């Protein structure tokens, strides 16, 4: 037996026709529903008015363009021979004491290539694994990281341990017999300049896709 076919009338859009409590003639929304919506909307707008600026305030530094600081004087040209690295402490962020200082290992660039045409090689001591301070060992002509055993060769290229890319470098300039350093940049395994990345970020092959550089650099 087939069930009797019910005749379906389309539901009315008026609250009164649908028999809702609180219905008024000619209204499509009950006043209670309307006021609920108004209260939620007003509360949402009020919350968003303080929450969105506060969130932007906290997240802003991610998208902030790093200020290009002026060049830093690191010493006279004669101070940095080509056959070994000379350590030099420079202040990159002023006003915060020891935290704002970094150590650079500098030598004269006796073999400029199209990729590395800077007059001096200035290698950052920030390990490319997780940011510990590496130290240049003259006897081994290597940079050694104390934290997790990363080792780098004379050019800062990875020779062992967990680092994912060579040590970062800095731009160098010479003026009036003085050596100046500019911006930090990262290098890939061919020692070609790439946008600056944090320690631990890959810059070679497929993996570099997973570690985007800062949006503004």
């Amino acid at each position, binding site marked *: 037996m087939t069930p009797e076919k019910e005749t379906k009338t389309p539901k009315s859009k008026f609250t009164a026709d649908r028999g809702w409590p609180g219905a008024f003639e000619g209204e499509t929304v009950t006043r209670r529903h309307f006021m609920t919506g108004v209260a939620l909307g007003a509360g949402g707008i009020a919350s968003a008015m303080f929450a969105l600026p506060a969130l932007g305030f*906290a*997240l802003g*530094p*991610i998208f*902030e363009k*790093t200020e290009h600081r002026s060049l830093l004087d690191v010493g006279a040209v004669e101070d940095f021979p080509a056959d070994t690295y000379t350590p030099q402490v420079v202040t*990159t*962020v002023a*006003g*915060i*004491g020891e*935290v*704002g200082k970094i150590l650079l290992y500098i030598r004269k660039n006796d073999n400029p290539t199209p990729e590395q045409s800077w007059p001096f090689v200035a290698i950052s001591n920030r390990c490319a*694994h*997780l*940011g*510990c*301070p590496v130290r240049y060992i003259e006897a081994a002509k290597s940079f050694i990281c104390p*934290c997790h055993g990363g080792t780098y060769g004379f050019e800062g290229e990875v020779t062992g341990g967990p680092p994912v890319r060579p040590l970062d470098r800095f731009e160098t300039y010479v003026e009036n017999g003085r050596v100046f350093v500019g911006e930090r940049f990262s290098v890939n395994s061919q020692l070609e300049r790439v946008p*600056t*990345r*944090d*320690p*631990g*970020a890959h810059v070679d092959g497929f993996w570099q896709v*997973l*570690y*985007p*550089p*800062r949006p503004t*650099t």
Partner: protein
Amino acid sequence: MPKMPKPSNPLHKKVSDLPKPPMPPLPPSLRPNPKPKERSEVTVGEAAAAGGTSVVAWIDERTSGSGFLRGFLFRKVPKGVNWWYTLGSATMFAFIAQAFTGVFLAMYYDPNPTVAYESMRHINNEVFLGEFVHGMHKWGATVMTVLLFVHMARTFVFGAYKYPRELNWVVGVLLLMMTMMMGFTGYLLPFDQRSFWATIVGVNLNGTGPMIGPYLADFLRGGAEFGSTTLPRFYAIHMMLVPGLIAALIGIHLYLVAKLGTTAPPWVKAEIPGQDEKRV
């Protein structure tokens, strides 16, 4: 025609006819007073106790708090509960101790990178009991983390995460994450060599996450480099953002514990199947 009285339904008893329920296991001071004494017999101590009772009664009349407290503090627990069931409370007590000592450390601490280490040296060497309060906060952090993991292991081994308590497990995992975040942000604050380099490594570990990692590291540092904003940022997260979240999550966690009841240990069987009224 006079209305006939309805035949009495055995299910519709008057409240006064019902058997009196047993007294809840209240401590003696909260039990109702049996009989007031003559005024001349009342001692000063008793009068003071009566005054205290009337203050409590005044508050209770306006809040109905006693019903909630009785249900919360004197709720039924299954047979077989043991010392392993106190680990959650112990973890919460450790959190309260951390909040308390943390507030007093904040009175002397200065989250400015140039003077943070000096202010910690001042707390440890010059402030009365400063080293002790700092030590309680430092070791209390470890105690809280260890208790939290043992509590979590107890819940897992006893199967207490199963239906209907899955959501409480989820809330507990959020509490674990918040506690880890407290440990991470608090480690930087003494601002000595160890905490500085540990934070450098920790932030860069966050940076190794694919796609989102570099942004996460920038958010934590407040920029591309460890700068003047990093330490205040860690301090604000450590003392305001995360503790508030932990307190709110503990509230949800406890509400669910009280609402769903405690699980019996897995080796406890209902004595008479089908007739056991205990919530096991």
